[in-house]
């Protein structure tokens, strides 16, 4: 018997319906701004449904389609992050597309569909739902990455992302099949029960399957050694799409990874954790080292996104306890400061997303003091300075790792985040202290300005009042997939 609980499904459904409606409407009246507004409303409705579910969370785990589609506290937390990120990406796109003649009507529907796929991924209580959500999300993003049709870089980014993404999906699906072979189930709870039962004798297949799944999700989260696509694709794609990818795709992939880790990955023989450990340590090192040598700010943020995947990974070790709570917090902070940074860049770059080198922002503090202040706030927060959101995020993930006995990797994290200060603060120095006659022209945009202002305020507020948002997602011990 299939039980369908529409309320649980409502957040994703409202995005899908809005995507269809806005496609239909824009067939008759080509107006992307209308489409954007419909999308924003859809995101707000989805957030309202999510809030409703969140307020009812005390009444036990809400689920649909058996246990394949969950709306528990972790899912609802990640949903909020994804919806916030989507709204920010839509606002950054609002004027950006029009100025560059990229305002085809399919843009926002694709973004909504991708976000709905992300919500499905987050909610997945089983492997089939996961792969379904992952593909819905990814297919739309492949198209978005190649959105700038007259730009070879953008086309290349889309193609590269598509081919490598398909390759990674193959790993993931192979892993799922193997896990099914070993345990006889697609459902996390059933897999977890099977793996930890006494008579389980297919440990070899389960381990191999775990590694395959790590490859598949490691690709989407951009973890070493499956991160290489990220700098190239992030650089080639249009700025708002880059922002969307680095926020929504990352959040969804991490949400899936956390659920898998809490369900059975951490119960595997301990060397799976050690493999994860090595991946995370190298991700932090490679991401930050890569950031160190970039001159393009967009590419620097791409490497920064890789590095932050490493920091988030630290919380995976605590996936059964405080890890998810920490990750929801970290991703919220990350999404907001990252959206802010990309929004600032989207105002500075020229028509082809070029002119984003360090020299191009020299003296920004003189010509546009408010913009320079906001950008500095985002960079300080990304670097993890106290009184900004990023600092608390780092404390939480380091604490999660240390409390679970992973001290060494936490130390690597702390050292690499010190190194990262160099490249995060370099733009600040250039903006404020470099003498130049640079005449910086920015492209005014009301929507983007709103993003920057809100993001700057929230970055500071989260840094001063972290307890509020963090406390909301208190989950206690019951975050293992419901069963």
């Amino acid at each position, binding site marked *: 018997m299939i039980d369908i609980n529409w309320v649980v499904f409502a957040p994703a459904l409202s995005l899908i319906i809005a995507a269809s409606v806005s496609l239909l409407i824009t067939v008759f009246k080509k107006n992307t701004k209308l489409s954007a507004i419909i999308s924003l409303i859809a995101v707000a409705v989805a957030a309202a449904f999510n809030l409703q579910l969140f307020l009812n969370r005390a009444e036990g785990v809400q689920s649909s389609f058996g246990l394949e589609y969950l709306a528990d506290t972790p899912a609802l937390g990640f949903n909020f992050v994804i919806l916030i990120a989507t709204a920010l990406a839509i606002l950054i796109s609002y004027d950006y597309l029009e100025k560059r003649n990229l305002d085809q009507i399919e843009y926002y529907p694709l973004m909504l569909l991708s976000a709905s796929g992300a919500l499905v991924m987050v909610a997945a209580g089983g492997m089939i739902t996961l792969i379904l959500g992952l593909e819905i999300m990814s297919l739309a993003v492949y198209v978005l990455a190649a959105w700038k049709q007259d730009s070879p870089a953008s086309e290349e980014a889309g*193609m*590269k992302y598509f*081919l*490598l993404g398909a*390759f*990674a999906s193959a*790993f993931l699906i192979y892993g799922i099949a193997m896990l099914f072979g070993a345990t006889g189930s697609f459902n996390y709870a059933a897999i977890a029960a099977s793996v930890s039962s006494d008579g389980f004798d297919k440990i070899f297949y389960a*381990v*191999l399957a775990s*590694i*395959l799944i*790590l*490859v598949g999700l490691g*690709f989407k989260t951009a973890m*070493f*050694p*499956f991160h*290489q*696509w990220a*700098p*190239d694709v992030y650089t080639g794609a249009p700025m708002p799409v880059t922002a969307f990818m680095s926020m929504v795709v990352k959040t969804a992939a991490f949400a899936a990874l956390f659920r898998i880790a809490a369900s059975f990955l951490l119960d595997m*023989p*301990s*060397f*799976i954790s*050690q*493999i994860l450990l*090595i*991946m995370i340590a190298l991700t932090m090192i*490679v991401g930050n*080292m*890569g950031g*160190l*040598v970039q001159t393009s700010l967009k590419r620097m943020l791409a490497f920064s996104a890789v590095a932050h995947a490493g920091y988030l990974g630290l919380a995976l070790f605590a996936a059964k306890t*405080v890890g998810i709570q*920490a990750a929801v917090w970290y991703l919220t902070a990350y999404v907001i400061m990252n959206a802010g940074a990309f929004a600032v860049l989207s105002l500075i770059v020229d028509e082809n997303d070029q002119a984003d080198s360090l020299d191009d922002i020299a003296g920004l503090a003189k010509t546009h003091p408010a913009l320079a202040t906001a950008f500095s706030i985002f960079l300080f927060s990304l670097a993890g300075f106290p009184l900004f959101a990023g600092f*608390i995020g780092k*404390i*939480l993930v380091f*604490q999660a790792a240390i*409390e679970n006995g992973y001290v060494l990797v936490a130390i690597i994290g702390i050292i690499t985040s010190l190194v990262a200060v160099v490249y995060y603060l370099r733009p600040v120095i250039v903006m404020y202290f470099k003498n130049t006659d640079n005449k910086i022209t920015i492209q005014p945009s009301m929507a983007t300005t709103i993003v920057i202002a809100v993001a700057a305020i929230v970055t500071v507020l989260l840094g001063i*009042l*972290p*307890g*509020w948002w*963090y*406390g909301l997602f208190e989950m206690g011990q019951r975050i293992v997939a419901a069963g």
Partner: protein
Amino acid sequence: MIALAAYAPLIALVGALINGIFGRNLKEPLPGYIASAAVFAAFVLSVMAFFGLQGQEHGSNVQLWQYLSAGNFKLNLAFNIDHLAVIMMMIITGVGFLIHIYSIAYMHNDSGFSRYFSFLNLFIASMLILVMADSFPLMFIGWEGVGVCSFLLIGFWYGIKANADAARKAFIVNRIGDFGFLLAMFLTYKVFGTLNIADMLGHIQVARVLPAGLTAIALLYLLAAMGKSAQMPLHVWLPDAMAGPTPVSALIHAATMVTAGVYLIARIAPLFAASPSASMVVAWVGLITAFVAAFIALSQTDIKRILAYSTLSQLGYMFVALGCGAYWVAIFHVFTHAFFKALLFLTSGSVIHAMGGEQDVEKMGGLHKYMKLTSITAFIGTLAIAGVPFLSGFFSKDAILAHAFTTTLAPVALNYIAYIILLVTAVMTAFYMMRWYYLVFLGKERLSKEAKAHVHESPSLMTMPLGVLAFLSVVAGYFGLPEFLAKNQFASWLENSIEVDISFGHPPVWLEWTLILISVAAAAIGLGLAYWVYSRKKSKAMLRISNSAIAKFSQSGAGFDGFYNAGIIKPAEETAEGLALLDAEVLDTGLSSLALGVGLFAGLMRKIQTGYIRFYALAMALGFAVLVILAAFWGKLS
């Protein structure tokens, strides 16, 4: 009603933000009025809290928010508005308000008008947070906040190098104290497992902590207090801090911020009461500071520097009271001192204003007839600090002397030594204050031509605060009359906040009266002697006491700056030069090879980052293969 006072810092902060962000666009008096209104609102809230606390045994704990609770790491931000805090709040906002008003006239036509009021409001907010905090981390935020504001305001006219240097000096010397505060916090957390002040004090009585541990924590907090309250040998920044605008000297460097150290020790009084050895150190630090600073004040010639050394000396008195376990007395002296010292600074500001910036007392004299109001209020302040009966300074200073005489906290012999040193200091205090007053307001006019043309009574916006402060300097003492005369309001009020059990000897009433008469005699001798000496001296050169070595020693600030220059700053500079050489020769080579390494690694990364899809796919497959090999390898081992 009490909890409302939690908004006081916020209001001041909003005032600071308004002036800080929009100040440049506001016309001149407006930023001053905005700032004053903010402080006045904070004052009203503080007074409401004061009345709310009447008849209450405990203060009100106002939860602000839980900063973060993650695992073992919990930090609640809360204000504890109790009897002690509310006294400090009323001093800060009350005196602060008067000084804001005064500043509107004093800072007239200054290009940094709105910046000044923004800083001043920020200071009030930080100082309120400091006294209201219920945990050490929150107090530390206020502690650092006032430090920053002090730095900003000392260096307010940063165009002049001496001012910027003075600001830096204040900041750096204060860092030593802040360092002590940090270490004290670490040790507190280690020993007591909490950073909440009330919890920690509760643990002292219950938990068994080694006395050595208590003493170590107490001494570290003392170091913090010495930095902020400018006790010797960390006092050197305060005389230089006079580079700031005079109202700033009155507010920050006399009435409020420098008493933060006294407040800190009174706030954690049970800790010091439990450690007699730490208390003895406190008393000696205070004694030395009180005596030496008064000695230096005898021969200074800068109108504000005399007062600065006087402040040091009075802070020393407060520390003696703390060291004797007479915590309420220390706060009582903070209370009276805030009025008469703010008054003295504001009158000297009025004089400097009238003289067009002249600060040398040798170029003043006879100003009484030009500015009667300033002169009369300054005279009241002088008498109050000198300890003339029936004025506020008399009661608080006499209480300190009496408690030093009768304390049982410190070893017996200390009582009488302390009493005698304080008595001598009291004579010196009366002397240098009378000298200050005489040289400025009485005697022969020694004004320069420009000054004489310029001299005038200050506008009413400045003289009004003087009047209010003079009134308070007269009456403030009656809240703390000696116990054998009347019920001591001040002591019984603070008993609610400072719960310590320290006994004092109860001398017979005739001895009490004798002690009081001796104090009165000390004040009379000092005042009379100074008047006698200076009314006789005619020529300018004669104004200095003499050219003896001891006078020179006094003039040089007892040689502290010279000592620091030769003993610390010079060696530090030389070491720095040596290190720079080392840096250039050795470290740079090492660093460049390190950078080369990083560069090579990054270059390698870049080489791997080819951009070819086939290569990336290969890398993924290889990565997978390596993971499987690792798993196989470890799987066999485990």
